[in-house]
């Protein structure tokens, strides 16, 4: 990526294919709204073309000073959001284990009581006047990022008669390519609701679920201020272009 000052040519190879048995399938009937929103026909596969192996990359210049600080980016001057103050930090890596710089991460979440600042959320827990619930960051040279926020509360949702989402933060991840686009959710270590949730349960592999659970990270806390959780994100890795000019493919 030119703007990070690297003297290496940008990578242009095709991506490792997605392991769709690792991801949740489209149809997960216990998560009811997937029933009418899941394609029933098979996906059509093809190797990445330029349309998938390229993508928009965003520069750090777009960020405001408080973009990764949800405690303050919506708060009135001198005030802050109510709740358990936490830092969430980690790295964005690709499947080859390399840090991915210049990745745009966007986050959104409910407030400490489990209420979203959205007109369609009618949950009786109140809004926090100092909490908006959105933030963003761009990874540094080594793929690292950090945000400051309050720990979101669990909330009930109309799926089963008594379903509650575990505390979670939504992550939207914008890699370097259309093929890497990913939205996921981060959960918190030790939350007993994780293993009861039909959205989490759409993932069949326990190891895959654990990959979405952020660990309490006492080394990164700020004493007398904020606890910390570490959450690494892995994006699809690129194949090296050892043999170009294949009869088909990109």
């Amino acid at each position, binding site marked *: 990526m030119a703007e990070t000052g690297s003297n290496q040519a940008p990578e242009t190879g095709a991506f490792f294919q997605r392991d769709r048995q690792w991801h949740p399938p489209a149809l997960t009937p216990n998560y009811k709204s997937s029933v009418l929103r899941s394609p029933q026909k098979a*996906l*059509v596969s093809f190797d990445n073309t330029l349309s998938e192996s390229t993508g928009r990359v965003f520069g750090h210049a777009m960020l405001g000073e408080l973009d990764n600080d949800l405690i303050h980016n919506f708060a009135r001057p001198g005030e802050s959001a109510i709740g358990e103050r936490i830092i969430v930090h980690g790295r964005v890596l690709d499947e080859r284990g390399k840090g991915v710089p210049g990745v745009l991460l966007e986050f959104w979440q409910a407030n400490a009581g489990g209420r979203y600042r959205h007109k*369609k959320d009618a949950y009786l827990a109140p809004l926090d006047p100092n909490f908006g619930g959105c933030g963003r960051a761009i990874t540094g040279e080594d793929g690292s990022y950090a945000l400051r926020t309050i720990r979101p509360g669990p909330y009930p949702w109309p799926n089963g008669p008594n379903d509650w989402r575990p505390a979670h933060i939504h992550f939207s991840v914008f890699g370097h390519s259309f093929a890497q686009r990913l939205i996921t959710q981060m959960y918190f270590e030790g939350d007993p609701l994780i293993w009861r949730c039909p959205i989490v349960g759409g993932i069949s592999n326990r190891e895959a679920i654990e990959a979405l659970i952020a660990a309490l990270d006492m080394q990164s806390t700020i004493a007398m201020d904020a606890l910390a959780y570490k959450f690494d994100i892995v994006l699809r890795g690129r194949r090296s272009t050892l043999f170009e000019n294949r009869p088909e493919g990109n």
Partner: protein
Amino acid sequence: MAQSLDRLKESPSQTAGPYVHIGLTPNFCGIGGVYASDLGSSMINDQTKGERIELRIRVLDGTGTPLREALVEIWQADANGLYNSPAEMRGAADPNFLGWGRQPTDTETGVCLFQTIKPGRVPLRDGRLMAPHISLWIAARGINVGLHTRLYFSDEEKANAEDPILARIEHRLRVPTLIAERRGDTYVFDIHLQGEKETVFFDS
């Protein structure tokens, strides 16, 4: 035992949920003052080269009901078929065209509008040209992994007929699900998530 391949697994996807707008289009859902504008809301300016077009997209569920809380992102080449991306090695794309856009569906009608330009043709590595197309990515409540499809243009019949990706679709009756219909300067494109008219979705 052989050496371990020592690769990580991609982070599993999860649904964007019903409140995706809080994070990705906060101004649209009334959370003002955090970002100056919603990212991807505008793709062109008065110096962008190419034919101005509008995309009018809806996403419909298995009953034919439009989704009113979906998010659509598009990625496309400029008028000369170049991508505005560091991985574009063929030349410099139009600096006045981002190539990427993001829009929510309307909370009443479910219609999602993009003001963009018609893309040029892009080759495969072997030199065969693809027909003009726009890549789409759809996220919403009920969708566990973002869905990838393409929009092709109804007035590009000849190019569409020789497009190598459309040629991969075994069931030829499904090809028209990827072709947006031209009405003046607007292309109308309905994405059916499920059922008889189900749109072709890709794994690539």
